[in-house]
Each structure stands twice: as C-alpha cells, then as structure tokens.
C-alpha cells in the first residue's frame, strides 16, 4: 500500500462523490435520495481509507509520513506537498469520521436542496482533510480559506432565522484573520525562498520578524479557535447553522486554530511564542471563566454549548503554549475529545430540535420519562464535556492543567475554576432538559431515539469511553511529534539563535 498516494485519495475522494451527485438527474425526491446515499458511501469509503492511514502509521517516528510531493508552480518552489505526522493524523481522522456522521444526522432533517447540501459537505471534507495534510503554506492556505465557501453556504442556505447575519459574520471575521496570515506566509516566502512548511519549521527566523509573523498567525488562528475577545462569531454561527453544520464547526473547524498554533506558531516561532505566552494565558483564562459564566446564563441550548466550546478551547490554547509535553499532549487530546464530544452534544440538541423545533431550554423538561435512551446518550456526552474521569474530557483537561501547573500555578488555578463552572452549567442544563416532570403535551409525545440516531450515537459513546479509559492508543502516536517540538523549543530557549535542530 505504501506507494499509493493515500493522502491524496483521502483528500480528493469526496470530490469524486461531488461529481457523481452533480450528474444525478430525475425528479427531486429521487435525486435527494440518491444524493444522500452517494454522500454517505463516499464519506464512509473516505473514512475507511483514512483508517488505513492510521493502521500503517509508524508511531515511533516524529517525521512526516505518507509524503507526496509534486511540482506545482515550478519557478516559485511552491509544491504540492502532503504528509501527516502524529499531530495531523488524528485531525484527518476526526474530519473523516465526523463527515459520515453529519450525513446521517441530516438524513431527514434536511429536506430542501438536498443535492447542494451534500455537495457542500463533501467539498468541506476535502478542504478540511487537505488542510491538515498540507505541507506547503500556499496549499495549506488554499484549503484553510476554501473552507469558508461551503461553510458560508451551509449556514446561509440551511440555517435558522438569523442565518444571513451569522453567515456574514462568520465569513468576514475569519477572512480578516486569515488574510493577515497570508501576508505572513508571503513574508516567510520572501525570507526563505520557499513556502515549504518542513523547511520553514527548521528555519530560524530573526526575533523581530518572529514577532510580526507570530502576530499575523495569531490573528488568524485566534479567530478560528476562537479566543476571547474574537469569539463572538461562534455563538451566532452555531445557533444559526443546521445541526450538521454545528457539528463540523465545533468538531473540526475550531481545531484548525489549535492545529495552527501547535504546527506553526510554536515550533516555527519559538522566541515569539515564549514572549507572547503570557498574553495567550491571560486571554485563555478570561475565556474559560467569562464564557463559562455566560454559558450559565443561556436560555438557548445551542448557544450554551457554543459558549462552552470557547471555554474548552481555552484549555487547549493554555496547554499548547505551556510548551511542555504534558500540556501539548493535553491540548491535542482535548481537541480530539472536544471534537467528538461537542459534535455529539450538538447532535443531541439536533435530536430534540428535530422533534419540537425549538432550542429554548425551558420548553423541555422531564425527557427521561419518554426518552430514556436519549437521556443516557446525552448523559455520557455531558459528563465527558464536564471532564469526568473515565471519559475523554478528563484526560485532555487534566494533562493540560498539569502542563500549566509546571509553568504557572495561577494559570492552572484559574483554569481549574473553569472545570468547576463547566460542571455547574452542564449539570444545570441536563437537569432542566432531562429531569423533572413533563408539563407539556408536545414534550410528552416526543419519541425516543430511532435506529438511525442510535447508529450515530453508539460509536461516538464508544469512542468517548475508549479515549477516557485507554488514552494511549491516541497519545502514543502523537508522542514523538510532540517530543520533537518540545526538544526544538528547549534548544531555542537555551540558545536563542541556535541553528535549526535535527532535520526532519
């Protein structure tokens, strides 16, 4: 299998599905049905191919694997260069796993313009996977920005009442951040003579340049993560997006920011990262405490989970910028865990939204009586979000806090309060939705999970428990890559202008 261009296959297989959907003809009901099936099969096959990546992945190496390189813009040394290491591998998997789940989750919820909807999701999958695989800045940027187009359409066409506002806000906020990154990429090109990421990672930039590059990258990634105070697009986008859109948004798109920090900011710009780490800690701690309090006050389920995402991503940014192995592993793990858990929570919201068409928490109550299966699934994800030991959420937050504790006890202390607050708002949400007595007839008539929803939730519960009970299968492959970054940081710390470390 080794000489197959596996990464290109995973990246562009969804486009094949798009092509198939595009040639569909016939009446609307038939094309809708066929489009659903094509999207499902394409995304499932993509997922299976991505599992091959995982199986064939050499967990002892920090190096990029499955590397593909082809000349693209010959005179400019801009190449089509793909590869994954222990860090990006799991993000690729996260993207390929969540896409079929999204397709299934939208099976009956989306009834208008199904064909276009499925095309948007498949294009989105290509963009996401390509972004995590890219080893050339221009390729990376193309995918990074390209995500905006399908997501803009998903929010705007299939979203809720204020979808236009939310779509515009999402688009313009993230675009503003990323164009500054484009300038940084060009500065790297001018400085380096190439946009190859591997070369740039081993290049030592002058400290003054590092500062500017770091700020430009930060503008882009901080909006994506999102960090306080540029998080305001997120609640709007989440609330207005259709369920599957929220799932991808929370599951993968937010991780692009964290991925950018851990892939570029930290190893490539170590001096600037050290210099700005206090800024990141401050913003993250504010995010954790402030957005947790905001979440507590929400009346809208989706908004509550959206704010909780901001808080959870705060742990990620703290963990990354500690520069410790624990902190970075924690951040990585937290991102993966949050990718599954928040996606699942949005799906949980989607389940009852599909039945009652309201996101207002007060309209529900007592669901445990007529929806026991739902109550169970929701409980698992809720507890994982809180960070109960034995679930995936615990490992990530714990490791991130350990990393923070090694660097700065105050940061660790303040971040920990966020964990307590998250327990408060999630349990409060759960109590209001699930427990109590049923007072309304429409709530009483709600049906429990159907088989399709069970099929969606069962594997997600399994993954959440797997990650919580046996985290090694995820931590082990990413260890060498993270150790390599830490080593690089140590070297930069000791001799600020040391030549680049071991060649990748």
């Amino acid at each position, binding site marked *: 299998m080794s000489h197959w261009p596996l990464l290109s296959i995973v990246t562009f297989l969804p486009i094949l599905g798009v092509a198939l959907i595009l040639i569909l003809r016939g009446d609307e009901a038939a094309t809708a049905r066929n489009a659903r099936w094509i999207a499902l099969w394409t995304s499932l096959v993509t997922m299976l191919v991505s599992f091959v990546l995982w199986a064939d992945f050499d967990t002892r190496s920090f190096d990029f694997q499955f590397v593909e390189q082809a000349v693209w813009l010959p005179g400019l040394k801009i190449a089509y260069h793909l590869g994954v290491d222990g860090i990006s591998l799991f993000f690729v998997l996260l993207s390929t796993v969540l896409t079929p789940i999204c397709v299934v989750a939208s099976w009956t919820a989306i009834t208008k313009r199904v064909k276009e909807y499925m095309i948007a999701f498949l294009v989105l999958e290509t963009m996401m996977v390509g972004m995590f695989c890219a080893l050339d800045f221009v390729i990376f940027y*193309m995918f990074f*920005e*390209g995500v905006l187009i399908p997501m*803009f359409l998903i929010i705007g*066409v299939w979203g809720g009442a204020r979808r236009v506002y939310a779509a515009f806000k999402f688009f*313009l906020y993230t675009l503003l951040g990323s164009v500054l990154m484009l300038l940084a990429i*060009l500065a790297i090109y*001018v400085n380096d003579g190439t946009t190859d990421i591997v070369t740039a990672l081993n290049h030592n930039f002058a400290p003054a340049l590092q500062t500017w590059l770091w700020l430009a990258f930060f503008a882009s990634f901080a909006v994506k993560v999102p960090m306080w105070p540029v998080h305001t697009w997120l609640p709007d986008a989440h609330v207005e997006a259709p369920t599957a859109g929220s799932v991808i948004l929370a599951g993968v798109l937010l991780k692009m920011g964290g991925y950018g920090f851990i892939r570029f900011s930290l190893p490539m710009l170590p001096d600037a990262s050290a210099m700005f780490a206090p800024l990141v800690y401050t913003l993250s701690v504010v995010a954790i405490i402030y957005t947790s309090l905001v979440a507590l006050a929400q009346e809208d389920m989706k908004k509550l989970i959206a704010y909780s995402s901001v808080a959870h991503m705060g742990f990620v940014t703290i963990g990354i910028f500690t520069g410790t192995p624990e902190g970075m592993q924690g951040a990585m793990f937290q991102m993966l865990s949050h990718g599954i858990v928040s996606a699942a929570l949005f799906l949980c919201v989607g389940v009852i939204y599909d039945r009652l068409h309201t996101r207002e928490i007060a309209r529900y109550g007592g669901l445990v009586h007529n929806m026991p299966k739902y109550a169970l699934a929701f409980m698992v994800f809720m507890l994982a979000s809180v960070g109960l030991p034995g679930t995936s959420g615990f490992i990530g937050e714990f490791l991130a806090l350990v990393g923070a504790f090694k660097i700065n006890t105050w940061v660790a202390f303040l971040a920990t309060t966020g964990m307590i607050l998250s327990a408060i708002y999630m349990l409060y949400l759960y109590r209001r939705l699930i427990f109590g007595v049923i007072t309304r007839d429409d709530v009483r008539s709600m049906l429990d999970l159907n088989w399709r929803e069970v099929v969606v939730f069962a594997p997600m519960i399994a993954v959440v428990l797997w990650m919580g009970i046996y985290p090694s299968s995820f931590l082990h492959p990413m260890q060498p890559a993270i150790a390599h970054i830490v080593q690089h940081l140590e070297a930069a710390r000791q001799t600020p202008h040391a030549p680049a470390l071991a060649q990748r």
Partner: protein
Amino acid sequence: MPIYSLHNFLTALPEIFLAVSAMALLMLGVFQSEARAAKEVSWLGVVVLVIAIFMVGAQNGARHVSLAGMFVIDGYSIFAKILVLIGSALSLILSVRYNEREKIARFEFPVLVLLATTGMLMMISANDLLSLYVGLELQSLALYILASFDRDNARSSEAGLKYFVLGALASGMMLFGISMIYGFAGATGFDTLAAHLTGATPPPAGLVVGIVFLIVGLAFKVSAVPFHMWTPDVYEGAPTPVTAFFSVAPKIAAMALFVRVMVGPFHGLITEWRQVIWAISVASMILGALAAINQRNIKRLMAYSSIGHVGYALIGLAAGNALGVRGILIYLTIYLFMNIGTWAIIISMRRNGRLVEGIGDLAGLSRTQPAMALALGIFMFSLAGIPPLAGFFAKLYIFMAAIDSHLNVLAVIGVVTSVVGAYYYIRIVKLMYFDEPAAGGAFDRNMGAEVRAVLIVATIVIMFFFLYPSPIVSGAEAASAVLFPG
C-alpha cells in the same frame, strides 16, 4: 532606416493588419444590406481579432525597436497584447446578440472596437511619449463613440459625453505633463529618457511635475482614485457589452502602458513616483471596497469593483520590480476572465425581453437558474479573492511583490480592504442562494449559444486555474523580466 523598410512593417504587422481590416470591414458594412451587415461584420471582426492573436503570438520574444524608435515589441508587449485581443474578442462576441435585441445593431460597432483595439496595441508598444499619446487618443476616440452607441438613449449619450469631456481633460493634462518632461529632460523617447534619468542626481522639479501630470492622465485611463469619477456613470450608462469591453481591454492596455512608462524611462526616479502610486493605490482600494457596498445597480457595483481591482494591480507597480510586474500581468489575466464571465451573466439578465440591472433582481437565482447562479457565485468568490479560485492567485502574486519590496503597510491595507470588499461580493452570493426568488421570476433562458460559450470558458479558467497555473505564471514571469534587463 527608411520608414518603408520591411522591419518596420513586420514589427507592427498585427496593428497594421487590424487597422486595414477595420477599413475593409467598414467598406463591407457600407455595401452590405443593412439587415445582415451588423452580424456579419461583428463575426468577421472576431475572426480578425483571433488572427491578430496568432500574429502577435508568432512574434518572437526578442526586443525590436522600429518606426524611428517610436515603437517597440518584446515579450512584455506580446503578453499584454494577447490579453487585450482576447478581451476585445470576447466582448465583441458578447455584443452581437445584445445589440440585436436592443435594436442598436449597427456595423460601426465592431469597426470601432477594432479601431480602439488598434490604439490599445499601439499604446502597449509605445516607446516614445508621442506614440504613447497617439495610441491613447486613437483608443479613446473610438471608446467615446462606443460609450454613446445607444444614441437614442439619454443615459448612453450622457455616458459618452461625460467620458469625452473628462477624457479630454485628462488627455490635456497628460499632454501638458509630456511637454514639461520634454522641456526639462529634452527628449520624449523612452530609451533616451531611461539613459539620462538614472536617479544619480536629483531630478529638476519641473520634470517631477511633468511625471505627476503624466501619471494623472494614465490614472484617469485606468480609473484609479481620485481620477475615477467618470467610471460609475459611464459603466452604468453605456450599453452593457460596451461596459464589458471598457472593464477589460482598455484597462489592461492602459495598465500595461502605465507599467511600461513607469519602469522604463522613469525607473531611475522610482523614489519620486512610488509615493504617488502608493497613494492612488491605497485610495482606489479603499474607495473600491467602501463605495460599492451601497450600490443597487450591478453595473455600478462592477464599476466600483474595477476601481478596487485597479488599486490592487497598482500595488505591483508600486513595487516597481520584475516581481511586481509579474503580479500585475497575472492579475490582469485573471481579472480579464473574472470580469468577462460576470459581464456575460449581466448581459443575460433579461426578464420578458427587457433588461434588468438591479442587484435585487438576482435574488433566488440559485432556484430558478442554478447553473448561472453557480457561475456568478464562482466569479464573486473569485473577485473577493477566496481560494482555490483564480482571484486568490491574482492577489497572492501581487501581495508577494509588495512584501518582497517591503511595502508592508500597503499590503496590510490591501488585505484589509479586500475583506471589506468581500462583503459586497458575498452579498450577491447571499441574494442568489439565501433569498427567495425575486418577484419577476426567472430570467429569460435564451441567453444564446455564444454568450454561454464565453461564460463556460471564463468559468473553467477561474475555477480550474489552480490545477495548472504554470503557463500563465511562467508566461507572465518571462514577460515581466524583459522590462528589467540586467
């Protein structure tokens, strides 16, 4: 070398061919029956333009100066001329059916397009301030008439008159600048000027004033702020195919000329003129981004959009090196296809046989005409510069040049205005995809095979540019290198 030598004819062969063909077509039109003349002459005009493309393409890239030093051909002129010819040919194709439907189908139209194109080719090949001026005027005179071609329509006549009055003013200023330059430098030939103006000694103030006046005239032709005032009105008033033509061919020619003048004879004085270019570039980008937001008429919106795009292209000129010129050429190439594609759609915006130009008329287009909406959506995202569409690469190369020349502030202003500008582009996408169909229902479906073909070609170029960008990129690279020998 005597003026009738073969060398002179060979270098200017495409221009001579175009001019002679224009005359021949004029005669044909006169003697042809009126019913058939317009259509026949238009298609023959397209054929002439296509032949001219091949004639230009057949020239070898070496630098030849001819016609007593007035005229130059090199790799740069070949690249720019091919762009102009493609732009003219595509706009002429778009005009045929439109003119018939609007009952303004007259055979003078293609002849005027050919004459204007001849002027543009001469501008691109100008190697003397006088041939620059003559080429520019030949182009402009034809364009003034084209703007008012729908002569019974008050708006069209107004557009032509406005363009003429302001254009004449700009030409006057430019001529004044040229005379100042001649007075203080003692020459009008580009090569002589370049040899003398090395920047080693501070230039006399009068020369700088002359250059500024020259820049004013050229900025008017490319419609850069603050000399853009004519653009929205002329774009709105002129018949749509004429507007399409205005937005590509003359703009590319004027931009190519602008570049040649600035980096050729006046390259030694770059520190003097760079700040002027910097300022008009920033002003154009800002105005192009902000003023378009409130437009309700799509032709006016495209006018402001083109002002903004000129601002981006001028960044490359501010860089003033081969990288910048390469950026400009790539930008113009991509801009040509984005714009022609968009205009092909605007030309097809007819409801019950009547033209509609409101942006609101596009509402719900994705339901009524999904293919057209998809194409326009692609152009809008491309104009906004979102990857992987071609518009992104246009901006990429321009900003690369800016960063390379340490024009960091200019680059930051550029990307920020591109985000502001993205707002009105995606507003059109919003109208087409998020909103309910407009009251009048679908547009007429008979857009015409030739319009559809133009649209498809433009869409494919914009959509799949990223797959195989190297021909355009390396072509532009080679073309820009010849302006910077050594």
